[in-house]
């Protein structure tokens, strides 16, 4: 299935892109992050991130579906 992935801050720098379409068989958000972390060499482990699915926060075991938009969110530092 095809998933649109958004990257922010240090993850964007590491991926080299703000957004990419990936073709994956990952069962859930956690498996997708593991796959992309191996590919891009992300320094941040999943337990320091939050994940979002289609514009809302989602748990790591949320299942994926074709055409979903996923974001992996490093620790925030607004304010």
């Amino acid at each position, binding site marked *: 299935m095809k998933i649109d992935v*958004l990257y*922010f*801050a*240090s993850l*964007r*720098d590491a991926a080299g892109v703000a957004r990419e379409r990936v073709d994956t068989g990952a069962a859930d958000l956690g498996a997708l992050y593991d796959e992309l972390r191996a590919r891009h060499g992300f320094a*941040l482990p999943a*337990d*320091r*991130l*939050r994940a*979002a699915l289609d*514009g*809302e*926060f989602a748990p790591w075991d949320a299942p994926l579906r074709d055409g979903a938009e996923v*974001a992996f*969110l*490093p*620790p*925030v*530092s*607004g*304010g």
Partner: protein
Amino acid sequence: MSRFAISAAPIDTQALRRALESHGAGACVTFEGWVRDHHQGRAVRGLEYEAYAALAQAEGERVLAEACARFDLVAAACVHRTGTLALGDIAVWVGVSAGHRDAAFSACRYVIDEIKQRVPIWKRESYVDGDAGWIHPDRTPR
């Protein structure tokens, strides 16, 4: 009345403050976060903020709605900057009005604390020594 916004332009604090006015309000508390010239011992030259705009908007609105539910407020608003900021620029503005000052102080503090913990916005600091980096505080995500 509550309003949250992400803004790429400088924050018009006067307009925001006026929108809190009401003859039923006796107290108004505002918080401004300013770009400071140092952070953890390093001399800062400027900042950049990036947001996941759609989710930041939704989460910011939730924070304001929570503040209105927890405290007896007349109005609340918050605006957070994105883009490149210079020293002294306003990075974030929070304002609340209420009948009494207890609620106003508590709510203003609640909003900025939650915004800083939960809203997907990231800061990239540029240092006087030429270095730069994204700030990802080491705390357990909630």
